[in-house]
């Protein structure tokens, strides 16, 4: 089994690239791989708690909760990116970490594969 590091910058709402990243993480974890998931830029909103499900928008919170429960999935948001968007530590969904960008690079150091999904 391997380790996949996914970095994503795309918006939670308005782009489906972030959905792709989460679904890919889910499929990898189901196959027994470990996944590190890094979000920066607009993708940091994925780590905000209190997301409500609406039919017009992606809702990934439930999948994330299930992924955290597997113990094979780590997710970390860029702290500066979140703070710049007015979203603070106490708004963070359970399971998520907040770090600076070096965390992503450290994750890439030991990853078998790295997929960086750029912003839209």
């Amino acid at each position, binding site marked *: 089994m*391997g380790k*996949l590091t996914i970095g994503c910058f795309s918006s939670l709402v308005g782009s*489906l*690239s972030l959905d*792709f990243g989460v*679904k*890919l993480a*889910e*499929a*990898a974890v*189901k*196959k027994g*791989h470990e996944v590190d998931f890094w979000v920066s830029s607009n993708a940091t909103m994925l780590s905000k708690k209190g997301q409500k499900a609406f039919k017009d928008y992606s809702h990934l919170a439930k999948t994330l909760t299930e992924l955290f429960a597997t113990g094979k999935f780590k997710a970390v948001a860029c702290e500066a990116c979140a703070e710049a968007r007015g979203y603070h530590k106490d708004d963070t969904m359970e399971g998520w970490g907040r770090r600076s960008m070096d965390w992503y690079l450290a994750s890439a150091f030991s990853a*078998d*594969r*790295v*997929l*960086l*999904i*750029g912003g839209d």
Partner: protein
Amino acid sequence: MKLGVFMSDFRGGSDVLDRLSAEKLGIILVGNGIYHATTKENGKSSPLLNKSANFYVLSEDLESRGFSPADVDSRVKPVTYSDVVDLIFNDYEKIIWI
């Protein structure tokens, strides 16, 4: 290098692909990239499919956009997320998203 490319766009990114070379190249069409597999303009398939590569298309993104595997160019193989994970770990050493 064995390179897997996630092509997520229909109009952009071909400039990057045109120059990339790899001893083994896989192009996985995802998001709006799936239109390369399904859509002809003026009766012609996407020029992307003329590249020397193995082509895949994510079934979920295909069906989300109103297509079925029957609509896919014969050079492109429909795959699931689970298949994509296997491609990433077993077939390609490096993977990029464009």
